[in-house]
């Protein structure tokens, strides 16, 4: 259900590393919990993001949610499509709903993230 080639955080973000370029987004569980997404805020190109801190926000009709970065890096690209059509996050969170591409120097942090199976176990534990 959650793509096996991705890694996951306990705050419901996913990452995909291709060399030093890391693509990030929110998980299917996150978009489903939020409900209809109506607004997304993403950082500008060249912004430095710090692991464990918010790099953007996702808003549903009723609530505002921070997106937490699992990595340190510099923003190389952000997904304009998602800014224009926030519903893409609900429809295709792992594909067209990607949020940012970040240049990451230290990729070892990815080892601390969860595999798809570990993420699913984590969700089950949390009773979600």
């Amino acid at each position, binding site marked *: 259900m959650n793509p096996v080639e991705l890694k996951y955080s306990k705050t419901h973000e996913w990452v995909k590393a291709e060399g030093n370029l890391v693509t990030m987004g929110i998980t299917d569980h996150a978009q489903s919990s939020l*409900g*209809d997404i109506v*607004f997304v805020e993403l950082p500008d190109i060249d912004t430095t993001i710090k692991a464990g801190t918010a790099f953007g926000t996702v808003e549903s*009709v*009723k609530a505002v949610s921070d997106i937490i970065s699992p990595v340190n890096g510099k923003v190389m690209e952000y997904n304009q499509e998602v800014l224009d059509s926030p519903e893409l996050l609900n429809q295709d969170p792992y594909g067209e709903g990607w949020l940012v591409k970040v240049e990451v120097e230290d990729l070892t942090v990815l080892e601390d993230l969860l595999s798809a199976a570990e993420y699913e176990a984590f969700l089950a534990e949390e009773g979600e």
Partner: protein
Amino acid sequence: MTELKRTSLFAEHQKLGAKLIDFGGWEMPVQYVGVIEEHKTVRSKAGLFDVSHMGEIEIKGEDSLPFLQYLLTNDVSHIADNQIQYSLMCYPEGGVVDDVLIYRFHPEHFLLVVNASNTDKDFAWLESQAQSYKVQLKNRSQDYAQMALQGPLAQQILQKLTSMDLTQVKYYWFEEGEVASVPCLLSRTGYTGEDGFEVYCSPEQASYLWQKILETGREEGVMPIGLGARDTLRFEARLPLYGNEIGPDITPLEAGLGNFVKFTKGDFLGRDALLKQKEKGVPRKLVGLEMIERGIARSHYPLQKEGKEIGFVTSGSYAPTLNKNIALGLIAAEYAQLGETLEVMIRGKAVKAQIVPSQFYKRPK
């Protein structure tokens, strides 16, 4: 820990897989399939809401009418038997106790329908004001389940379930009869800006009636609707929400509800304070706002004009029918000009919005 209250339709919401939340102490469905889809269904077809958590207070006795005239800001003598009126109930200082619907059965029998979160407070308030009037007050909330079928297809769907001629039940009038053989009180009222009905029945028969309505409307695309869409629908239609547009610190005049305050009818609670406010000039005004820069204004966000704080957002959201981010804001009256820009403080950032007419949505004739 106090447990959340449940309406007689709770099992239905569970069956339908609703996302349940705590709404003023009640465990209620916020959505079934999604707020936006539910919202759009009400505007284009029809949707069914469980509103059983609302309160019903019965007023009977020879002084019913004078008591209500004193209690409410609107002129209750204007309604006939089987007619309904919207009104505010104010404190002596002019702030709002609640907004209500008053149903008249006959001159010595009325039903006050009140907000779910205010039922106990309102009943206590009525009791405290009824001392010198010959009236009997009864909190009948637990005797009523209530559901609302709202949308352009509401009448045709409900008509299939009743021999009452619904074309004869006009806007803000009610009838008593049977729907799906269930004894009901049925009023042409609602909180969505669409045509529709509110149906009151006994809690024991509520599930059956709920199921029959959904079944009957299934082909036409009727859906159950949660409180999330209920809020976006009423907000687009500029209908006030107690706790947002009105409250103990906001007068009906500030909220733009002066039409429901009748100074010439005689004395009523809050009359002097409101008249003074009207004569001096209402200090704050409720305005419509449309975001000009990217962002969503939400309840309580501060409003500024060139860095100076001038008020706050009462309600704000993405509006599904208009496909825009809009808000209602209460601001110092001198800034309340159509076309003016101001800034919404969204999590510390100033985001521009423009003052627009607040009747964002009006249903097509």
